[in-house]
């Protein structure tokens, strides 16, 4: 049985790299990513699991890193926005200007990326279901929708 009673070294696999970090059991994954590993792409928003700004992938599935303990991430593959390079959804976001202030963008991109990997030909209802997990306070949803459609074309899903 694994146990963590105090500050301990944790080995995490993040963006394909093994990272060693000293954590306490009460550290959230978001906190460790940003404050201890310098991966500031995932954003603190509501820190309540509502807004999706902190979305990262755990074993390819989108999760909200503000409501996951860092110790829970042990043994899983974590992907942050820093781990994506020139993916179809990133290109589509740029081409469609699918961001305004940009604060929600990493979360949206991670969620879209996971969706396109899982269901390349996602229909409108599926896209709506997945992306309802993220909030854009600039309300730039129309451009985000266009970016998803474009990314599907770029990736060959549609």
């Amino acid at each position, binding site marked *: 049985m694994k146990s963590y009673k105090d500050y301990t070294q944790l080995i995490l696999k993040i963006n394909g790299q093994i990272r060693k970090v000293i954590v306490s*059991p009460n550290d959230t994954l978001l*906190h460790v990513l940003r404050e201890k590993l310098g991966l500031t792409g995932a954003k603190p928003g509501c820190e309540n*699991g509502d807004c999706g700004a902190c979305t990262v992938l755990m074993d390819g599935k*989108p*999760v*909200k890193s503000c409501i996951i*303990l860092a110790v*829970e991430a042990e043994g899983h593959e974590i992907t942050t926005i820093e781990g994506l390079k020139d993916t179809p959804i990133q290109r589509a976001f740029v081409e469609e200007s699918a961001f305004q202030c940009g604060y929600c963008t990493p979360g949206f991109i991670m969620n879209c990326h996971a969706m396109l990997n899982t269901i390349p030909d996602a229909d409108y209802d599926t896209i709506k279901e*997945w992306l*309802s997990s993220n909030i854009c306070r600039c309300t730039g949803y129309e451009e985000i929708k266009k970016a998803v459609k474009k990314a599907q074309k770029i990736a060959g899903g549609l």
Partner: protein
Amino acid sequence: MISFDFEYYRPDSIKEATDVYAQLHEEGKSPLYFSGGTEVITMARKGALKFDALIDLKNIEEMNVYRKDEDGIYFGANMTLNEAAEMKDFPLIREVVRTIGDHTIRNRITLGGNICGRLPYREALLPFLLYDAQVYIAGINGIKALSINEAFNKRLVLSKGEFVIGFKVKESFMDTKYLNIRKVKTSEIDYPLLHIASIKDEEGIKIAVSGLCAYPFRSYELDKHINCNSEPDEIINNVYQFIPGTIKEDNIASAEYRKALFELNLEKILEKWGEA
């Protein structure tokens, strides 16, 4: 980040989990079982929940499986709501769990966590109440199986050190027709003002309700009442004596509004089953 310190344990078996719980309890600590963690972490961060140790149940194999047994289909309590939604055997379960939270959060919320949680809604419970599922509960003395309708009284009644490992539903319910109505105030991703799930089998119409009271419920007396041969108007007029709690009133909706919504949708359900 959570503002208080605690210990974290990740047992690999039921026995390890119950043993560590007992040991921590003996040491005077307050341990808490933990799976998806969405509610625990949120409440702990807000200071609404305190504990000295978390016992993470995610490595316990019996809690992570979905399997067909001779006497029914078993859902491990650690199945996430998205995993449960992918199982197509029970369309009502699929439909109900897909309305809880948002898609991303459903990658973490577990069946067991939703049903045993502290929020008043616990919507994943509704189909299991209607199907009179067996709930498997582990404790220091081993595993027991109970009817979920016996084990649930405003909340799943668990003794100190016990936790839910899974649920079993009879295969015969797979083809049972159902109706599912969920009403929210604005966004689809919101807690329900009212959620009524209903099935009709050889015993008649059964309903389970969330959002109306401070806890979800299924009432045998209510089922009996709605299956009497009275006119729908009469059934609805006399329905509140069979509701096992006061009608919820909060900043989302008044009790009067919830009652009106309930009456309207109960009428719809009675009409639809009448047509069927």
